[in-house]
């Protein structure tokens, strides 16, 4: 057991020094999604490897961003989270805003947001240093990644096809994230594996 923990700690330390650009460039559909270790809003340690055998969805968030606002005000993101749970997928909401930046949350605020939004993620990961964000090259909020049960990346991009802050556009859009989640859950290829991740730029600590 010990060597495994050491391995993960080493990996976590490594990701602290990895260059954002290089890490992001390594991301490829069909290739292993980068391993990470994080801490959730309940103080629990969360490793991507813990979820081997399950579909994993990563959702970058910033509660002050109007695009995130559209997805939560409409209830569409919460619905997607519940549908993911029904399909046996793990949903990780990740907050990579730096301290003092819009969307920065501590554990208590993250839990309060989950409650007030009536959201249903498996975990909310606190990433104020942007380690996981840079590892994935997360650019916008929202930005969605879907990982297959075998650990390979299946989708990266927008929540859907219409870059707007209007709630009514959600039902007019091609639902890229939902489509990816359902395809992966069914063991099928994702129709649009790479799309534009629209939204506000992630407010990384500078």
């Amino acid at each position: 057991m010990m060597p495994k923990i050491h391995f993960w700690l080493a990996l976590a330390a490594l990701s602290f020094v990895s260059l954002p650009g290089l890490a992001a460039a390594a991301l490829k559909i069909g290739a292993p999604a980068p391993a990470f270790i994080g801490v959730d809003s309940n103080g629990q340690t969360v490793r991507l490897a813990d979820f081997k055998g399950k579909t994993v969805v990563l959702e970058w968030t910033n509660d002050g961003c109007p695009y995130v606002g559209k997805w939560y005000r409409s209830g569409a993101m919460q619905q997607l989270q519940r549908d993911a749970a029904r399909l046996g997928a793990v949903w990780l909401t990740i907050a990579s805003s730096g301290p003092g930046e819009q969307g920065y949350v501590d554990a208590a605020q993250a839990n309060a947001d989950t409650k007030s939004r009536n959201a249903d993620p498996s975990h909310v990961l606190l990433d104020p240093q942007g380690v996981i964000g840079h590892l994935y090259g997360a650019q916008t909020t929202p930005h969605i990644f879907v990982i297959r049960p075998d650990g390979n990346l299946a989708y990266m991009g927008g929540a859907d096809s219409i870059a707007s802050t209007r709630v009514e556009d959600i039902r007019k859009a091609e639902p890229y994230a939902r489509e990816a989640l359902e395809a992966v859950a069914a063991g099928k290829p994702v129709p649009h594996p790479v799309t534009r991740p629209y939204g506000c730029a992630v407010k990384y600590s500078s």
Partner: protein
Amino acid sequence: MARVLSLLLSFVAGFVGARAAYALESAPITTPHAQVKLVSDADSVEPGKQFRLGLYFELAKGWHIYWSNPGGAGQPPELDLTLPRDAKASGIAWPTPLRVPEGPVMTYSYLNEVLLAVTVTPPSGLSSFPITAKVSWLICEKICVPEEGSLRLDLPVGAASPSAEAPLFAAAEARIPRPSPYAAAVSPDATLLLTGKGLSPETVREAWFLPAAWGEIDDLAQQTLSVAEGRLSLALKPGQTFDPKAALSGVLVVKDATGKENFLTIIAPPQEGGRKS
């Protein structure tokens, strides 16, 4: 007192305006970050004669709105025009934007002010020309705010002369890209190649490419320029949706030795016969 004074000033301004070129602009939408007006380059609508309408954005310092390809974040402004029956409007003529980094991404944006113009073709029989425009835009600095509003402009019908706002259109025109006079191609690894008379180290001191669509190139990557007599190559980094079998479209900004910028519309088909040196 201040109110009385401003009333008096607008009264005087009304008289002055009536004597000079007729001011053809709507009442503005004013937000904490922008003032937006609908303006016309002609003071009257002449039946059947094309004229231009523009959305004129004046932005608070440091705030930006986005180009047709916004880059890594944001979205372009949207304009929904309602014109009299049988009048037609073109799409927006987008001036060449600036490269504005925003945290982890590169965006293609406008700072300070921009005019987004459309060309209107009025029908032949007309008695009045009311226009309404529904406008929405995302404006960002450190944070982003969606804004929107409605504008209304009633244009008189008659013999047209340039309006007081016509110079705004001329200024915007200077940054509208023109069709490139050079032969263009793109290599399988996303190097843009231009050939033709007029390309030289003197005429091309700097150059950068703005892709028409998201994902074609890595917007953050360095673009490496080399220029010889009659030839330019700009090494781009392929983006997530770059297709070596498809044409690469966008705008090339070329800065000459005097610092003057030229804006060229590029449609570069894949290089024939693979890579050549």
